[in-house]
Every structure is written in C-alpha cells, then in structure tokens.
C-alpha cells in the first residue's frame, strides 16, 4: 500500500504517524514545502529568542526515521492527477499513490491593497521563512507595523518587543483579539502592550501604502487620514487555504478550501483531506484529529469526526493567561451574563440562557476550565447543578466507563 501525505504540519504529521501506527508495512511518503517539522503556533517564541529550532518540533526525536517515512522536503505539489493517481511536484517528480492525504494547510492572505503583494518589506507570519525574514529585517528597520490584531498579530508583537524597535498595531475592530475577547479582557493586554511601547490604532485600517522607487513601503496611510512611518509591515489579516494546485483536478473545493466529510473523504475515491486546507475550524486540535481520522479511514478503520466545536482558544501574552469559549458577548437581552472580578487580575465571564452556556471568558486563573468547554460544546443543561456557575466541575457529570475512563452521558 502506498500512502502519500501532502504537508508536514499538524495534520500531515499526525496523519502520517497514525498511518504508520496502523500499518507497519506500507510505504508512506511525505511531501512538504517545509524542510523541518515545526509548530507554527510557537514560531513567535523562536522570533523572541526563547526557543531554538529543535524546540519547535512537536514530535519525538528522529520522528521520520522511527516511523520509516520517506520525506521529500522543499517540494510543493503542483498538480494531482485523480485518474492515474499521481501527484506531480515542483521538483518535476511524479509520485504515485494508492491513497492520498491532502494536508497542505493555508498561507497568509494579502488584502488587495495596492503595492502590498509586491512590497519586499511586507511579510506574512505563517511559515518559518517568514519568521527568518522578519528577524533579519527587524535588525535594520526602525518602524514595524503589524496589520491585524488577531492571534497571529499579537503573537508577532509579543515576539518582537525585545528588539526595542517602534512597533505599531493597526486593527479594524475597536479592540484587539476581537473574535476571542470582549473589551475588558482585551484591555489587560492592550494596557500591557502600551506600557511596553506598542502604539495601537483601533477602528482603523490601512488605506494606502507609500512606497519608494524599489516598491519598499516607507509610510502607511490609515483610513482616518493619519500617516504612520513603516519600514517593515507584517500582514496578519487572515489566511487562505493552499488549494490552488487542485484547480481542474476534479477534487471539489469551495471558496473556503478543500471539501471533506466527517470521515475526511473528499469527493474523490482514495483522496482525503485534513486541517487548515479545508478552511474550516482552523485550530490545531481539529487539524490533529482530522489527520488522525483521515488516516484511520484510509487504512480501512471507520473513524468519524464528532468534535466540531472550534470557537475555543487560549492565549498567554505578557504573563496573562486567557481562555475564550463560544461567544464573547450576549447576543441579545435574553442571554444572561455572570461576571466575577477581583483585584488580582482574575476576570471571569459566562454567558448563558435557559440553563445552557454559550460563551465564557476566563482571564488569570484558568484552573480546571476544561469542563466549560464540554458544557458549551455539548450544550449541557446546567440547571440541575447547585453550585455557583464559576465553580462547576466534573463531579455533577461524573461517569465511569468499564475501562475506568471518564465519560459524559448522553
């Protein structure tokens, strides 16, 4: 059996590993643009200098050899021939497959601002080489501007503060991390970054880039007319799935990305997909699970994805932990909001209605918060729980399986 996996990040690596776990004999070929295995989630720690390349790895040492995987690095898939079951890659090679896992992830989206794509000093923050470029350029530049105050944008900022350069953040919404956090939770970070010298521009976007004769950005004009100096622009305004190589292949994609079912199958026999390439639920645990599930189905073991709850995230900036689940503001007045606050930086907020929780934000002490994730995901009715809502724990849902594992009952 010949398995081919495209992409060596969360989905691809976990998929390949699972394939090897299930089939000791099969040929597994991994094709990736990446030439090393690294976790994109902690790339900013490398930029900050608190982690080296080796520590970016998220698998065991010598993973490739231990799992007997043939790895073609620095190679992009340029075409998939569904009929002949071949992948043509950028080196010119053709790789045959019996089953294929597409886990090519996503890449930085450059908004259609004139001169942006061409500017040599406008860089995304998705891949290792983005990171290296920024690190190199930040040595000589003075004014770094980050476009987009989402998780990636804030990762970048926290990874660059140590350089001592002028850093500015431009964001369309009225506070940072607006998908995950409400204004109060965001404020803790905003204040913290402000005290570290980061200038923040909210409810503003980039209208125009002023470039020099080489196309390099020298200044940015914001939507309110304000002009800010910039000699390095980091674009963190979203990502787009890497599916361009699938055009015309017959494998179905839509405007978000690759289309798969709950078993990881695409519309084509023997071709599977997993992770950010689908453009949906783009979080690490989903990528990992989809990779594992696809691998199981590829190896003939029926496995189904059941966890579609993806509005969940945690973050740790400036030593302040925050956790966000579900919605971060009540939808209307029918939703109740419980808040707990203290003078030690602990902020807790739960949004609920009719005994079900729809959203939660915890900042500070996140101890034991995992139960909240399940209460929201499974829409468990907590009316019978006679505890203060912030003290709810697993005891009221306690159930043990035969093998002594815990379980939530239907």
């Amino acid at each position, binding site marked *: 059996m010949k398995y081919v996996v495209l992409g060596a990040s969360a989905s691809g690596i976990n998929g390949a590993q699972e394939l090897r776990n299930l089939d000791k004999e099969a040929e597994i070929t991994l094709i990736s643009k990446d030439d090393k295995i690294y976790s994109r*989630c902690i790339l900013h720690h490398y930029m900050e200098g608190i982690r080296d390349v080796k520590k970016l790895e998220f698998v065991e040492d010598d993973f490739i050899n231990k799992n007997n995987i043939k790895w073609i690095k620095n190679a992009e898939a340029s075409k998939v021939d569904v009929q002949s079951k071949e992948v043509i890659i950028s080196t010119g090679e053709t790789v045959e497959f019996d089953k294929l896992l597409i886990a090519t992830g996503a890449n930085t989206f450059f908004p259609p601002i004139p001169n942006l794509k061409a500017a040599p000093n406008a860089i995304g923050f998705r891949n290792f080489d983005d990171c290296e470029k920024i690190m190199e350029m930040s040595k000589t530049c003075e004014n770094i501007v980050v476009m987009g105050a989402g998780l990636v944008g804030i990762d970048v900022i926290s990874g660059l503060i140590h350089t001592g350069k002028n850093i500015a953040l431009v964001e369309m919404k009225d506070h940072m991390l607006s998908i995950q956090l409400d204004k109060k939770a965001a404020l803790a970070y905003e204040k913290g970054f402000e005290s570290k010298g980061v200038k923040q521009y909210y409810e503003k976007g980039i209208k125009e880039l002023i470039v020099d004769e080489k196309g390099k950005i020298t200044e940015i004009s914001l939507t309110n007319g304000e002009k800010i100096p910039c000699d390095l622009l980091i674009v963190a305004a979203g990502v787009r799935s890497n599916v361009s190589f699938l055009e015309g292949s017959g494998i179905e994609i839509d405007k978000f990305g690759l289309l798969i079912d709950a078993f990881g199958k695409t519309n084509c026999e023997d071709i599977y997909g997993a992770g950010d390439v689908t453009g949906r639920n783009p979080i690490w645990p989903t990528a*990992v*699970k989809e990779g594992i599930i696809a691998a199981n189905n590829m190896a003939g073991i029926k496995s189904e994805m059941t966890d579609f709850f993806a509005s969940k*995230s945690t973050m740790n900036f400036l030593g302040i932990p925050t*956790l966000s689940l579900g919605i971060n503001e009540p939808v209307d007045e029918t939703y109740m909001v419980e808040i707990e606050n203290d003078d030690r930086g602990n902020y807790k907020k739960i949004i609920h209605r009719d005994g079900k929780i729809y959203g939660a934000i915890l900042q500070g002490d996140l101890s034991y918060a995992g139960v909240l994730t399940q209460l929201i995901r499974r829409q468990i009715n907590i009316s019978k729980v006679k505890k203060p809502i912030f003290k709810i724990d697993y005891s009221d849902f306690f159930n043990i399986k035969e093998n002594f594992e815990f379980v939530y009952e239907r």
Partner: protein
Amino acid sequence: MRRIKIDRSKCIGCLTCVTACVVSHESCDSRNRVTIDSKTKAAPIFCRHCDKPECVYTCMTGAMSKNKETGYVEYNKERCASCYMCIMACPYGVLKSDRIEYKEIMKCNMCVHRTEDNKPKPMCVEKCPMSAITLEEV
C-alpha cells in the same frame, strides 16, 4: 496498562490523595482534585490517561504525548510553551497550571518517578485510607 480505578462510593473527601500527590512531586500544587457534586457526594477527579487524550491532540509543542508502551500520557515541561490549550481541552477539567508561576501544567504521571524502572507507583493510591482508589489492569 494499569489505570487508577475510582470507587466513588468509598470516597470520604479526606484529601489524603491530594496531599500524597503534592508530597510525591514535592510540588506547590496538586495534580488531582476531589470535589463534591450538587448532592454533596464526593468525586475524585483524576487524570485518566485517556485512550484518546484530548490534551495530546491539542498540544502544539509535543509536550503532552501518549507513551505507546505504557499507555500513559506524559508531560514534558521542557517542551511546554504554557499555552494552556490542554487545560481547555481536558473534558473533565483535570488540568491547571502551577499556582506560583502559571507555567507548568499539573499533570499526573502515575508517579513513575518513584520507581527505578519507570513503573507506576501512585502515592495517592498507597495512601488512600478507604481504598477508594486502586491500581488495576485495564
């Protein structure tokens, strides 16, 4: 593999298991907890070293990993980036970070550090006065 079997009916909430956990690791915090439910019945909430560990799936540094031989979910604090995804992912709310620096995840390791050959020797099981928790083969 051997897992800690929990017999809730025997638990008296004495917290000897929590004490044992702290002492075994000479830690500032515990890796297990006991709470009472809405009916005031005690519930020992311990890491199950799940067959399908959510904490492992969600860990993006490889700090949480499933040991194929022993079956235990191991935590490597050198790899950990303190991102807290695992705390959010554990469906039973077992995990937390240490209470001093909020950097290390309080993760049960079946007290394999107490033996020469890495076999499990949980101190909580040893010390429970009511035999509410026992080590059993699954």
